[in-house]
């Protein structure tokens, strides 16, 4: 079967985008990706849209995006797995190319969130918990991860300081990313003085709701080599799930879906965690990044706190993580986050990441989580 390469990438500024509709955001990312790929729009056989429908007034988003991009009558469809919708879109595009159905597929993750109020978003996101038995108690998305944090602190001695180390690191790198929502360094003191959200989390433990889009164009190997002198290959693709209800999980200190998706991706790529030069992981909350280090095998279980405190995930450390600012500083327009992660790793493997470039990065990884680990997608990406 053919290998699948990424031949074009595009990315909007993330943030409150009151200047644009969701299809206009999709267009910005798409135009940049088509120009980057240096292909004609007509060369694209299909598109896959990653988005979470509940945030938009427009029903059935794929159709309106497809029309606005001028891709009709080519096929399109929407993928939805909460905050991992963008990676699910990449996976289905990859599958369609592997299967020989399509050759060139544009994948667009896009989301407008800021038309809703924060309490409305908290209610919507909280319902990624199980609504029959949990949501009636007013559980929220931050609250679920906060309960993972409390348990992780209890079992492994992870500290409040170590959680804030994640926020400080990601804001440090967000300041270097022109597409990021927050482009300012923060101090632990400032983070520790922010408002409570759900204990132990304060505002700076949480990523920000945002609007934005990111596009990646995939092609089968022959076409990828023909149109690009620097294709980045989707070499390992993992995907796994865990129970919707956290009440039915084996433990509340990690995401079993992430462990399994990582194992699949590393096996397919013939790699192991130590081979990874740069990673983008799903830091929707500070504890989520610490659990990701452990679930992906970058450090042993329970040692994620010291791992970030020792600066092992800064550039120059064992494995630089979220050097684009992560969800934390870049912003988290949920449907766009997966394609944004892949966008960053492609930039890194091409050596085009500017001030935040990881020197000579050859192997990259993305880790995109849907909900509270109900879904997880892991990609291992390589260059020639």
């Amino acid at each position: 079967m053919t290998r699948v390469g990424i031949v074009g990438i595009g990315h909007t500024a993330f943030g409150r985008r009151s200047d644009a509709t969701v299809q206009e955001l999709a267009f910005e990312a798409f135009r940049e990706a088509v120009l980057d790929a240096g292909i004609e729009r007509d060369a694209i056989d299909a598109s896959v849209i990653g988005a979470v429908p509940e945030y938009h007034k427009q029903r059935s988003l794929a159709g309106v995006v497809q029309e606005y991009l001028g891709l009709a009558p080519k096929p399109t469809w929407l993928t939805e797995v909460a905050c991992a919708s963008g990676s699910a879109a990449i996976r289905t595009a990859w599958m369609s190319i592997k299967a020989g159905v399509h050759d060139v597929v544009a994948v667009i993750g896009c989301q407008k969130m800021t038309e809703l109020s924060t309490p409305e978003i908290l209610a919507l996101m909280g319902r990624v918990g199980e609504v029959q038995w949990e949501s009636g108690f007013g559980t929220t998305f931050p609250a679920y991860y906060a309960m993972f944090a409390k348990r992780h602190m209890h079992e492994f001695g992870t500290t409040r300081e170590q959680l804030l180390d994640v926020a400080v690191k990601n804001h440090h790198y967000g300041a270097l990313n022109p597409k990021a929502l927050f482009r300012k360094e923060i101090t632990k003191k400032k983070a520790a003085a922010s408002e409570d959200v759900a204990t132990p989390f304060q505002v700076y433990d949480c990523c920000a709701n945002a609007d934005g889009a990111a596009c990646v164009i995939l092609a089968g190997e022959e076409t990828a080599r023909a149109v690009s002198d620097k294709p980045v290959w989707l070499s390992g693709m993992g995907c796994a799930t865990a129970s919707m209800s956290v009440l039915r999980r084996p433990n509340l200190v990690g995401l079993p879906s992430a462990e399994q998706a990582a194992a699949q991706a590393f096996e397919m790529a013939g790699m192991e965690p130590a081979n990874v030069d740069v990673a983008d992981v799903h830091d929707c909350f500070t504890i989520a990044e610490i659990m990701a280090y452990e679930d992906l095998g970058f450090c042993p279980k329970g040692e994620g706190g010291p791992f970030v405190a020792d600066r092992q995930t800064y550039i120059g450390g064992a494995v630089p993580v979220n050097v684009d600012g992560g969800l934390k500083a870049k912003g988290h327009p949920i449907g766009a986050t997966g394609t944004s992660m892949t966008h960053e790793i492609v930039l890194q493997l091409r050596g085009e990441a500017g001030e935040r470039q990881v020197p000579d990065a050859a192997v990259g990884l993305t880790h995109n989580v849907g909900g509270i680990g109900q879904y997880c997608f892991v990609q291992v990406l390589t260059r020639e």
Partner: protein
Amino acid sequence: MFKWFGRINYAPFTKVDGFAQHLKDGRLMATRCSQCGATSFPPRADCSVCLSGDFEFTELSGRARLHTFTKIVAAPTGFEDVAPYTVGVVDLEEGGRAVAWFGDSIQEGEIEIGMELQVVPQIFEELEEIKVYYSLERPGTEWVKV
């Protein structure tokens, strides 16, 4: 009458709707598969082990141990007026887990992971319509009929 369950109920129609009637009568129930005997909390009508759709309710002791917790300050729509509130996840003595609020018998400062708790059926007295839930209370706390 599953619409009785929860301050806001998002899933009023279910095969296990008898749960809410039992809760109103002071009983915390799990489900047990009539075919293979597998029990579940939260309740489920369809057995995840043997796929049978036959089940019966079985009463739990309510004895539990705190697995983790958080105080929610930023509340979602519909819960702003009761914020902040503290929710805990407990491991039930007979297996399974529940998420619930801490009740009046527990002071905020004494909450710690691993503490023993009692899951107690409750009814919202301040609401005109019937709304039932369960809370996390000091061990030995009894259900009180309202």
